């Protein structure tokens, strides 16, 4: 057992867990935040994507202990004061989700993608390439790509307005 502490969605948390505890298990089972999902055993599907210190990470492939001292963001921490984040809003507006199972990972991958490229700098080809690590079986990706593009452009507009 080891003690693991982190800042999870802005809140300091800690727990004693088995050494083999994965970050996704810490999030889902210890902290009972069930928005992060597990869809495969081999780090392919991306349903478990969270942010660790601002970078997208597959939480099924990282030990909780490796996130000791880190800032972790899950889907539950994205909406602020009841208002959807622009990426969440764009997924709704463009019907970028059906069963919802891959959605949290898709959204957190999209956020990472927009952060890395800069808001407004994504085209369809780049988005499709960047989504290599996230599998969706429902939507055929068409509306996910539209949603990410729209969110990226909208976030660029917001950034400009703030300047």
């Amino acid at each position, binding site marked *: 057992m080891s003690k693991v502490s982190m800042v999870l969605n802005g809140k300091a948390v800690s727990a004693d867990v088995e050494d083999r505890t994965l970050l996704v298990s810490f999030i889902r089972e210890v902290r009972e935040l*069930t928005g992060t999902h597990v869809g495969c055993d081999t780090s392919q599907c991306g349903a478990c994507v969270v942010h660790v210190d601002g970078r997208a990470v597959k939480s099924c492939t990282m030990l909780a202990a490796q996130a000791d001292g880190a800032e972790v963001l899950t889907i539950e921490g994205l909406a602020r004061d009841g208002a959807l984040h622009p990426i969440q809003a764009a997924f709704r507006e463009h019907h970028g989700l059906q069963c919802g199972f891959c959605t949290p990972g898709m959204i957190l991958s999209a956020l990472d993608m927009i952060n890395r490229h800069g808001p407004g700098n994504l085209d369809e080809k780049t988005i499709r390439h960047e989504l290599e690590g996230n599998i969706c079986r429902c939507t055929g990706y068409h509306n996910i790509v539209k949603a990410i593009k729209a969110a990226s452009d909208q976030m660029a507009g917001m950034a400009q307005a703030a300047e």
Partner: protein
Amino acid sequence: MAVEGIGARALRKEDKRFLTGKGRYTDDIVAPGMGFAAFVRSPHAHARIKGIDASAALAKPGVDAVLTGDQLVGDGIGNIICGWMIHSKDGTPMKMGGWRALEPELVRHVGQAVAVVIADTLGQARDAADAVVVDYEELPSVTDAVAALGPDAPQIHPEAEGNLIFDWEIGDEAAVNAAFENAAHVTRMNIQNNRVVPNPMEPRAALADYNTAEEHFTLYTTSQNPHVARLVLSAFYNIAPEHKLRVVAPDVGGGFGAKIYVYPEEMVCLWASKRVGRPVKWVCDRTEAFLTDAHGRDHQSEAELALDSDNKIIGLRVKTVANLGAYMSLFSSAVPTYLYATLLSGQYNIPAVHANVKAVYTNTTPVDAYRGAGRPEATYLLERIMETAAREVGLSPADFRRRNFVRSFPHQTPVIMCYDAGDYDATLDAALNAADYDGFPARKAEAASRGKLRGIGISCYIEACGIAPSAAVGSLGAGVGLWESAEVRVNPVGTIEILTGSHSHGQGHETTFSQLVCERFGLDSDSVAIVHGDTDKVQFGMGTYGSRSGAVGMSAIVKALDKVEAKAKKIAAHLMEASEGDIQIEGGELKVAGTDKKLSFTEVALAAYTAHNLPEGMEPGLKEGAFYDPTNFTFPAGTYICEVEIDPETGKTEIVNFVAADDFGKVINPMIVEGQVHGGLVQGIGQALLESVTYGENGQLLTATYMDYAMPRADDVPSFNLSTHETLCPGNPLGIKGCGEAGAIGSPPAVINAITDAIGNNDLTMPAKPEKVWALYHSSMKEAAE
């Protein structure tokens, strides 16, 4: 908020919970004191179990029990069944072998469960499962269906001699033989439909909770049809009588057919919960899903198409061998028969069709309905041979199809189905225009100038949804009726709950079903809630599969709404001292026509519940139920056109344009319908380009992870160009045909027709991997050069 009725692109009511991590899937549910199940699975495709030694596993920390098939059989748990009886052409019933949820004697596919460990944590359960020692005597195995029919094949079930489950036929063989004797041209092909895995992103899961005091079970599970699950668990598997068993299918992360069936694991969790006296949870990992979720397709067919001198089709002859895997899953017998061969007439006027289907046991995972279920196999066969025949006789594939279209309705095909309505020219025209079909030669030339091969392929599909008229399917062997039920519950404050037997696992029922109510009463959708997926809440239902929730599920809601509307009008007429016929419902109010007298919907609902002043003899309350049994199947149809560009250096295919023109009848929410088509198209394109189950020597499944099984990723597929044309279905009150499966049904032949057009070689099988395409193209080039 504006009222969003039929035809509105209403944004989804269910989205907010999924977008914020507040969805509630089976694995998210926790029961106090629960233990975890881990299954011990066969590493062999075919082997006799000589003994199971659980002593080391039982000594591990946290372990409650190791349970085996002998105990399961000893407790009277029933065999898993196939619910659709098919008779061979000689009149004998299908030969179904026994399937136990935990096998005590003879395993028949890799991954079959032989024991289960229940422990305090999942880690402990898995550690202990690894410590269970099973002594196997390995036997020869066979995974290919044609090979399984061969004289040297190992016998898999004693009941099915030579591994033949049934040898079924449909159509008039003599008429087809006569047509071929008179044919001016015959096109012949061998056509394979590759085995694929449905792969909903949420793996199957179960949380079973037995209450010893009440002798009552609750099962939370990933089901597309919780009432059917309860019925089967109760009536056939002897888990508990129905009133002692509640099945809840909460948010379910995709189904595509794979979550129709009750599998061994869910049954075992229920049984184990009672055995060990604590709730038991099991969550499938992805490799277990590949090994145990029902697979789809896996047909090997010979097809022959006979044409007269005007290039009109005069006959179709089909011989298919269908691989059903090691056991007969719930609807497995219906998929390659009544859901397949009845669609072989396609959109065409074919006077004579005969199909023979042999269903075969092999040492592979069971095969059952996967998105489309039989109709993709029929469409692939027919649209491949249509395109090929057009090339052989030198007609444009579009013109050849148009020459043979059905144009008069109702149209009785030679294979049971009676098409009620359609306009196949309209969807073909729409697709040809959207694809700029006439401009293709110029694009091909331009691609050639860049050293690329360009091809275009058409698929005109028809399918049967609205499953299904109960008496009709009963006469064909179905064990259940396929109606749907609904209840409309108006609360005293005028808000409305719709209880439905349909189940949403991505289809957006909470939104579309609400739109029916908004349309009817002029209420906003916040006043409406959809309740589904819980046998304690909804009286009964047959669930969601076969694109039936619109045509059948919504029809039941419409029937119940009719009753609520009639009663509300009676109450309003009484309260306003008007004639019932003068009451109109508009904008959430009941008005007396031609006057300014009106009552709000809320006032009428309240009056129904206070019951202070109701018409003489009327019962209080405003709540009505209905059962809707369809009168016919519905027939969605359309045309898909795929254009590809292939790099001759690598054989890699890029889909540069994909057009879909569909006729789904009345569209309730275009946004949701488009989403269904997008998803279906990518599943079909996945089958055509990427996905395929591969078994190696000794029956080992080589494609059991996402590293080995190529799921379509975003950069494997294009964005799509969609349109719909509405020919109303005359068979149901809304005119709906269904849209859930069309994309997966119609797209594979369009893709393969396009690639074979590009490479000038028709011998391509799915999936069209680059190495295969490259080799075929270069062999064609070599032949041409010689």
